[in-house]
């Protein structure tokens, strides 16, 4: 075995090294200088992100357990960018609050572990690797959710997440065991060849599917979402809603499009039904929320429903549109969470009512929020519109016009509650509006990056073309 083949695991290895470095740093850096770990972590991760863009690699390791393709590689980069922005947005919070409680480094270690899990999950070539990746990505997040140990809701969020996740992965495992029973292998490629549409296989697939649905928070497996999002620290919520969800969507799609391709006639109906439920339930719940985090939680449930419209396509068009949408979604949601984060950090306020009159005191933040919400709602010319439009195109290309129609009805409903936030920020006047404040460099950088992403991703078409090319290779 040639060691150069470990280059395939470049992402994983570097991230692991960074994590270990931080661990070491945690030990050796004296208490009063712990704040510098934040800079160090961001710096290291920044380098990691940049390194990720250097060249694509393709191949498999460990007898096919681990594989890397340009698409996977690209997606890891996407996740990296997302995490980097997230780190930038969280830096102030960590330095001001968490470092003082002597747990600044933990955040990075847990977060990076989770990210590492995702890397493995999306690179998985068999169910074992997939399962390990899945668990590795979930467990640290559960710890992170309970990160603010002094807060009761944080612990509650942690409990809810870990138990639900355990249940989900248990169900999922049971399903995998059935697939193993019918196909005799846990390798994706083998299963794909063996699979037939018998009852046990379908049951296995459904059980497995629910496990991932849980991560993507599809209805009716979404109930944990709102509670955990509300209880967890904003950075963690943000991570859950964009990075974790994105990775899960990616691997779900790969599995559905490759391993379960022969069962497409079953799962496309399933996806159809779940997509509808997810969009409607997510939107109906979101329209009533007052807490911004909870609000964004339901909105992200609804967004997951839209993603299924791309998945239902079942071909590389669907694949490309979903990846593109996820990318756009990462930027949009991060922008929204970033603003919530900034405001929460300065004032501790997280309710929609507190945002009233925000534009008159903090115009820039409000504008970022507006762009983010427009992008989430799918209003041109920001990127979200293109993302959604392409998803609908993907669904429509298979003739699912009714589904698209209901989806656009949902877009309208979702617009309603996004506008509620805009109403609070722009339309209302408030004596006790949140006073003007300025953000520190990291936060600003984090927001600017997201805004750039929101604006350019849509208008800059070569990006989509690039994704489209990549998705061709995967299939």
């Amino acid at each position, binding site marked *: 075995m040639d060691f150069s083949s470990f280059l395939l695991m470049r992402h994983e290895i570097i991230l692991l090294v960074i994590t270990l470095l931080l661990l070491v740093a945690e030990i050796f850096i004296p208490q009063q200088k712990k704040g510098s770990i934040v800079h160090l972590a961001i710096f290291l991760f920044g380098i990691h992100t940049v390194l990720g863009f250097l060249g694509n690699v393709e191949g498999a390791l460990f007898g096919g357990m681990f594989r890397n393709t340009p698409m996977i590689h690209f997606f890891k980069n996407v996740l990296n960018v997302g995490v980097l922005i997230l780190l930038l947005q969280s830096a102030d919070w960590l330095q001001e609050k968490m470092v003082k409680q002597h747990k600044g480094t933990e955040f990075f270690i847990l977060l990076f572990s989770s990210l590492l899990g995702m890397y493995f999950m999306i690179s998985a070539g068999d169910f074992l690797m997939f399962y390990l990746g899945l668990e590795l990505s979930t467990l640290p997040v559960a710890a992170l959710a309970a990160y603010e140990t002094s807060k009761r809701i944080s612990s509650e969020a942690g409990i809810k997440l870990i138990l639900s996740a355990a*249940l989900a992965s248990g*169900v999922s495992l049971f399903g995998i065991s059935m697939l193993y029973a019918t196909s005799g292998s846990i390798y994706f490629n083998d299963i794909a060849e063996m699979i037939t549409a018998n009852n046990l296989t*379908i049951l296995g697939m459904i059980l497995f599917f629910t496990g991932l649905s849980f991560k993507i928070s599809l209805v009716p497996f979404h*109930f944990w979402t709102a509670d955990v999002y509300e209880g967890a620290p904003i950075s963690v919520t943000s991570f859950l809603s964009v990075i974790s969800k994105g990775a899960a969507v990616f691997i779900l799609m790969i599995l559905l499009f490759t391993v379960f391709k022969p069962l497409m006639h079953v799962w496309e109906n399933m996806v159809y039904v779940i997509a509808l439920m997810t969009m409607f339930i997510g939107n109906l719940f979101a329209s009533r929320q007052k807490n911004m985090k909870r609000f964004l939680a339901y909105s992200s449930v609804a967004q997951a429903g839209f993603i299924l419209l791309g998945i239902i396509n079942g071909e590389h068009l669907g694949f490309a549109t979903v990846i593109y949408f996820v990318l756009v979604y990462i930027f949009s949601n991060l922008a929204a969470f970033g603003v919530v984060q900034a405001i929460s950090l300065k004032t501790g306020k997280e309710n929609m009512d507190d945002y009233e009159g925000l534009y008159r005191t903090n115009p820039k933040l409000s504008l970022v929020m507006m762009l983010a919400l427009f992008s989430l709602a799918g209003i041109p010319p920001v990127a979200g519109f293109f993302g959604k439009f392409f998803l609908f195109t993907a669904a429509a290309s298979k003739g699912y016009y009714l589904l698209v129609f209901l989806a656009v009805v949902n877009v309208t409903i979702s617009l309603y509650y996004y506008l509620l936030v805009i109403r609070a920020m722009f339309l209302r006047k408030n004596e006790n509006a949140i006073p003007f404040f300025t953000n520190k460099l990291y936060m600003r950088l984090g927001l600017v990056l997201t805004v750039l992403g929101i604006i350019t991703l849509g208008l800059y078409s070569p990006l989509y073309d690039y994704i489209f090319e990549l998705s061709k290779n995967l299939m």
Partner: protein
Amino acid sequence: MDITYIYLIPIIPLAVFLLLGINSKKIKPAVSGYIGVLGLFTSFLLSIYTAYQYFFVIGKIDGEYQQFIDKTTWLNFTDTLHIDMGILVDSISIMMLVVVTTISLMVHIYSRGYMKGDDGYTRCFAYLSLFTFSMLGLVLATNLFQIYIFWELVGVSSYLLIGYYYTKPSAVSAAKKAFIVTRFADLGFLIGILIMGYYTGTFDFETLNAVNPETGMLVLNWASTSFMGLSVIAWGLILIFMGGAGKSAMMPFHIWLPDAMEGPTPVSALIHAATMVVAGVYLVARLFPMFYFVEDGFALNIVAWVGGISSLFAAIIAITQTDIKRVLAFSTMSQIGYMMMALGVSGYDGHEGVGYMASMFHLFTHAMFKALLFLGAGSVIHAVHSNYLKDMGGLRKYMPITNITFLIAALAIAGVPPFAGFWSKDEILVAAFENNQILYYIGVFVAGLTAFYMFRIYFGIFWGKDKKYEHTPHESPMSMAFPLLFLAGMSIVAGLIPFSEYVSADNKGFEAHLNYPLAAIATTVGIIGIALAWVFYKKENSLSDKYAKSFGVLYKWAYHKFYFDELYLFVTKKIIFNRISAPIAWFDKKVVDGTMEGIGNKTVVVSDKIKGMQSGKLQDYAFAFIVGVVVLAGVFIYLWK
């Protein structure tokens, strides 16, 4: 013949209008008066010149008066249908040119005195010019659509002039009423035009009216489609006549005319007596060949009857009214009914077309003496500051010129020879006698009524009781007196014009002779009417009240104008406003909008209803999870594979 200079006749008033309208605040009143009169005078001269040219120099070719047309396309509809703008010169349009410019000039001159000191002096002249322009455009129109365009413009100028005293609510509502009623009638006109356009493929009078000596009407070859047993062209004509009836205040569209007297009196003279209200007559005359030939004159019959009945109806009402302008208004309606009737009973060829000729003749003479009556009435009103008979009496001592001219006009309208009205009325009765006996008798009866009510107010104003006035009335200034004198002159001599030589249905002209027996009957009836008025009103006495009582209900009904206003009010207020519009507004608010809002509200309600699903209990979530799995498995394994 180069006729392009005729464009100047309407364009000059338009220019005056724009000049005065845009600069209404900057121009001094005195100057604006001069500008208005000067502009009109130019138009007047041009009209006279045109008339001379047409009738005596170049118009008649091969014993027939020709049509001269000059036009350009204004708007294209389809390859064949288009609106042209241009001028059509033939005998009736020339005749109308003369009438319009003459009366308008007189009214302009008169207004300089009458409107003196009014804030809106300039505005008044601007509107008058606008009206004159529109009316001239209407007269000269070459096709149905052009006439419709100017028809509407005339309507709006009428609106503006009736509502001239716009701070007075009654004036505003009168203006509104006039516009809406005529607009409603114009709806018929427009639909008629559309029908013509669709079935004949043209709007041009030239083509529409074309009569081929061998095959008859050209239009008839184009369309033979029928609707409810009547050819669509006939329907079209009836609808077009509806427009005409609206503008000419025929039954049942007459209700706006009495109210229109809210406008300044010179305006009433110009628009609501002499020119605009005869537009309907002119329209029917313009399309006369069609009316005559299509469906054997079915539509023409309607014209005759509507005219006859309106004439009778208006004359009866006129007897009972106490506002002198309203009496004159009903008189106008009555006389126009006469003209309509004349058209309706007319034939086409040669002497058969006497009704047509008579109608135009009466239009001409009526314009002169009715304008005179109005201007005279204006002069009286100017002097006593009231419209009502009860405030007048014995004015002959104070206003000699007005008295004499008013008397001349009254004699003219009463049909006493040799005044103008006698000649034209006689021709009408001849035509009616020859074609429709019933209408003839109506006509004779109306002639008597006309004489009666006209002298009723004449005596009431100038004779009767000797009233004491707070301010001693005085004769009007020269600017007002001159038009009176001029028109009085016209009222005397106009009847002597050998009209039938120039204007006739087939454009060939014929020689009209006085029908002595009929003339004698008409004159006698007229004189009886005058005599009765003399008895009742010459001296102040209670005879009239007594007789009025003896008529009882009829008097009451006539006094209330047969409750037409109330009927209209009922239809508009109770039916349209309350029974159509209000329910629609309600429906829109509650049902249509309610549905839309309801969808939104329901969504919120549903959202609130289902919030219990998210109970916060971990185990409920797990239960939902498991149920989800089981249901999915059940459905997709057993039901929907």
